[in-house]
């Protein structure tokens, strides 16, 4: 392909993660021509394939909760059938666990906010918790319980959207990092990569924290920083429980997958200080620390063997809530990034609503609280 060859599309999406892939799929369903440009060699190599698979409503900020609730009601239940790939969606509830009075207060606060948004979530005590999940230790004294939460497989969901979008004619190009966005006559028009310049009427930037430097080429900034987090997975174990689990301190979270393995994420407290050579490699302390945390809650898992650990970057936003927004200053430009570590569960709803925003100019769910220009300095 020549250096200056133009490729015209209705929409170019920068980023082949689950947000980009899902948006591409819903846009293709509406009949638009779409190209997805992925900087790396692999589709879904970032947070999309590195997260813990939660499909939660409870514990979310009220600004993104409507998206989570809508997606769980309308998209997740039929997603495997729609994509022709088993995304292993399991809707058996979420327990957010606590051990202390401080935890109880945190959980009560989150619960009260979610209830005010119409979510079925409530506080339960230790006995009620162990009636739902008998493997939890006696140290666990309180939890928020949301029966309509669950989990799914991030790998097959991300690649499932890719597969289905590709079938519908979406073009995916890997190793195509965007160096620059270019306006022509005041509106977005070109996406510059090392091999080609692509042209479109509309461009969606959905490239995780790399979105920041891409958006900077047209003078737009989303205040977010990369934050490295770590996960681990056990060998297959006999079926034990189906709920999604988290803790009040967010020190670990996880679930047992359909395959039987337990997938857990956790923090050592050193995430913001971790050595980082430009590649999200596991630290020496992360998996060990997460194991200690898990054993305190689940003594029965002490003998489960860890087969794999990995790390990934969150695109951590200033207010820990995503930016999903049109950019009026650069007509034709749209942003979906800064998911701050909880993008997977809302990804189908984000893809659906962003596709509506791009194609129709308005979306089913009001996303105005997630605008890119909401960040204000101290007064």
């Amino acid at each position: 392909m020549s250096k200056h060859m133009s490729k015209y599309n209705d929409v170019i999406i920068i980023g082949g993660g689950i947000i980009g892939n899902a948006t591409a799929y819903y846009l293709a369903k509406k009949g638009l021509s779409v190209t997805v440009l992925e900087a790396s060699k692999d589709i879904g190599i970032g947070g999309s394939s590195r997260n813990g698979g939660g499909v939660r409503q409870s514990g979310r900020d009220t600004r993104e909760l409507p998206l989570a609730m809508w997606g769980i009601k309308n998209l997740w239940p039929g997603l495997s059938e729609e994509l022709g790939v088993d995304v292993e969606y399991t809707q058996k509830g979420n327990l957010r666990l606590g051990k202390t009075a401080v935890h109880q207060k945190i959980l009560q606060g989150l619960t009260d906010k979610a209830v005010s948004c119409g979510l079925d979530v409530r506080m339960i005590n230790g006995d009620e918790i162990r009636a739902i999940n008998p493997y939890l230790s006696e140290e666990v004294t309180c939890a928020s319980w949301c029966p309509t939460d669950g989990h799914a497989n991030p790998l097959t969901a991300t690649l499932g959207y890719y597969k289905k979008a590709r079938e519908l004619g979406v073009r995916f190009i890997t190793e195509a990092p965007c160096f620059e966005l270019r306006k022509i006559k005041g509106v977005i028009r070109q996406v510059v990569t090392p091999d080609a310049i692509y042209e479109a009427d509309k461009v969606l930037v959905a490239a995780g924290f790399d979105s920041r430097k891409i958006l900077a080429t047209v003078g737009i900034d989303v205040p977010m920083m990369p934050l490295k987090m770590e996960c681990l997975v056990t060998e297959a174990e006999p079926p034990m429980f189906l709920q999604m689990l988290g803790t009040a301190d967010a020190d670990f979270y996880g679930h047992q997958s359909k395959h039987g393995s337990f997938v857990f994420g956790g923090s050592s407290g050193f995430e913001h200080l971790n050595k980082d050579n430009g590649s999200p490699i596991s630290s020496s302390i992360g998996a060990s620390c997460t194991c200690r945390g898990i054993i305190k809650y689940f003594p029965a898992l002490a003998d489960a063997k860890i087969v794999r650990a990995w790390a990934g970057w969150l695109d951590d936003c200033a207010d820990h809530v995503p930016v999903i927004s049109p950019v009026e200053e650069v007509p034709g430009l749209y942003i979906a990034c800064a998911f701050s570590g909880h993008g997977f569960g809302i990804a189908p709803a984000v893809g659906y609503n962003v596709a509506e925003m791009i194609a129709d100019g308005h979306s089913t769910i009001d996303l105005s609280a997630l605008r890119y220009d909401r960040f204000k300095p101290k007064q």
Partner: protein
Amino acid sequence: MKSINDRSQDIGPFVSQTDDAIIICRCEEITKGEIRQAIHDGMFTVNEIRRYLRAGMGLCQGQTCGKLVKNLIARELNVIPDQLDPATSRSPMRPVEMKVLGNEEVAHV
């Protein structure tokens, strides 16, 4: 642009082969036919095959099947295997019990 980066390239239809039932990933029992079908679904890298099918995600972590999967992709896409990256290696090297991995107490003798 390398041809492998254009995921819409025509690699021809999926044609079944007589040995498609051979197990390639022994840990997760994934067959040659399943891997070939996944390539036709658009999974053009070893990492993508692993995430899509679990080939190489079992106890041996792909130490047995990694090269076989890579060669299958190369053949199906008509590229040389050296153009493809191996799957990412992950710690720990051997499966380790949580109580062992999580134990950082040093025994002072």
